[in-house]
């Protein structure tokens, strides 16, 4: 019988702790598949964030680092500068990368640091109980915006791809989603492209993944995917925001 579905080598054989309907696990699998397909199992180094996905350091069966909240791009910088031929990526939530770690993210991009940030935008701080994130949509209710996010009071949501695109050091920036199989495929392609651009030494790369958090959105897994599609994508349009000239075509 032909095997159509196997566990990638880079994915450890342990169950995820994520809530039902959480898409963190899908993104982990995509990263692991791309590492396998690129033959990078022995040369890939990942940096885990502080957030729901901290245990990606157990789920990926490669050498891993666990960084302080928001500092993964700085940690990745240190690793990559010592081991320039390795594939170095960080995996970070939106609180991690777009609030407390904005400085590290922006300057890694500005330096054209040859690392890849897998940026999980789930519009909340999930691990700490569903507080407002920089990416929380206007009107969205969270535990710290119980009446819905108001621009006047809470400021406006941050579009990270758009923010990093003008930086000359950014080589590849894409926003993808994983709310249906077609988008999962596109997400995988973007991750592969980012890793390839990194390994070619073109500069900083990031894939922003719109991801679900049914638990903190107060929705069922299915409703969550629908909410992502109907509410998040219009504000956070999918697509490539920066590509190196050669991979443009």
């Amino acid at each position, binding site marked *: 019988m032909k095997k159509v579905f196997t566990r990638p080598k880079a994915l450890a054989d342990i169950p995820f702790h994520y809530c039902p309907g959480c898409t963190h696990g899908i993104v982990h699998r995509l990263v692991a598949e791309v590492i396998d397909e690129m033959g990078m*199992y*022995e*040369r*890939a*180094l990942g*940096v885990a964030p502080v957030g729901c996905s*901290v245990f990606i*350091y157990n789920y990926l*069966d*490669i*050498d*891993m*680092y*666990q*960084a*302080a909240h928001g*500092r993964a791009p*700085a*940690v*990745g*910088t*240190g*690793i*990559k*500068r*010592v*081991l320039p031929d*390795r594939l170095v990526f960080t995996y970070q939530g939106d609180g991690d990368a777009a609030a407390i770690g904005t*400085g*590290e993210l*922006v*300057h890694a991009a500005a330096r054209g640091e040859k690392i890849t940030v897998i940026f999980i935008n789930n519009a909340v701080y999930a691990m700490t109980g569903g507080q407002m994130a920089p990416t929380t949509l206007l009107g969205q209710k969270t535990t710290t915006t119980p009446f819905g996010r108001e621009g006047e009071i809470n400021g406006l949501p941050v579009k990270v791809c758009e923010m990093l695109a003008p930086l000359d050091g950014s080589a590849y920036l894409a926003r993808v989603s994983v709310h249906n199989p077609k988008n999962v495929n596109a997400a995988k392609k973007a991750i592969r492209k980012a890793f390839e651009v990194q390994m070619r030494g073109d500069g900083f790369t990031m894939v922003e993944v719109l991801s679900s958090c049914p638990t903190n959105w107060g929705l069922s897994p299915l409703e969550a995917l629908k909410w992502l599609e109907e509410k998040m994508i219009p504000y956070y349009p999918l697509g490539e925001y920066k590509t190196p000239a050669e991979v443009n075509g």
Partner: protein
Amino acid sequence: MAKVLMKGNEALGEGAVRAGCRYFFGYPITPQSELPHYLAKRMPEVGGLYLQSESETAAANMVFGAAGAGARVMTSSSGPGISLMQEGISYIAGAELPCVIVNMIRGGPGLGNIAPAQSDYFQAVKGGGHGDYRLICLAPASVQEIIDLMQDAFDLADKYRNPVMLLADGVLGQMMEPVELGEEKIAEAPEKPWAATGRKKGGPKRLINSLYIVPEECEKHNIKLAQKYDTIRRNEQRWEEYRVDDATMILVAFGTCARICKAVVDSARNEGMAVGLIRPITVWPYPTDVITRVREKAEQFLVVEMNMGQMIEDVKLAVEGMRPVHFYGRSGGMMPVARDVFGEVKKLYNGGAA
């Protein structure tokens, strides 16, 4: 080998290079800028990297990454910048990563000033960041000692998988002295099988981590760290004794202060007073052994610091209440003047009479 004239700041850089350090991450701050200036030129000559970070927070975390990847790596800063590094240093200590951090202490608190001080003593020797951890802290008092201790700093860091902090101040950084550099042996970082450099065929997965979510495991980790710190306490105390043997009064001072106190000891001896100096070279582990030894003969101690009284706590702990421990300090970037310290010595020596 011929001696060369060198500034303290340059000696820190050259000492690091000779110790095999090839990575420096840092952010500008006075009074340590000459060290990064030196390394920005020197690192490329030896195939190393000088990288200016966007903040000290980032620098410490770059050090975390580079150390985890197995490199000999350092950073350097002063007061406000060292405060920003505390997060990273705590993670480095938790993940048991070797690295060297230089603190050119300046006047504080807050922005304070850029003049020499020793007011970051507590921060350095009592932990500094969150959690139960220790840094090995070295306190050189001459340019030659800076060169020598830089090598030791990297060796100790690797030996114990622990961050090492070098405490200095603007005086030591600016001071120019002849130094013996020794053979230009380019030390290589030792093998580090724990470093996360990519899965080897059949090899174990390596994880650079300070998270222990299960309290039982976190306690085990803390106990393991505490055992390591105990070993360091037993094996690595270093100090210099100066005219201590028959001394009834012992001065205790480190770094720049110790240089001043040496001159004070000589003046006192010229006037027939039995005064000696203990100069801690490691301020963590604190050289408690020598204090407990000399407290038998010495009748009193005088701790001299460039702060309002920090190291005095460690001296008191070692003296265990058996002798009076006095204090003389200047702070805010002011230096003790030998004449004033001498005045204090004379007064105490004569039983409190001026």
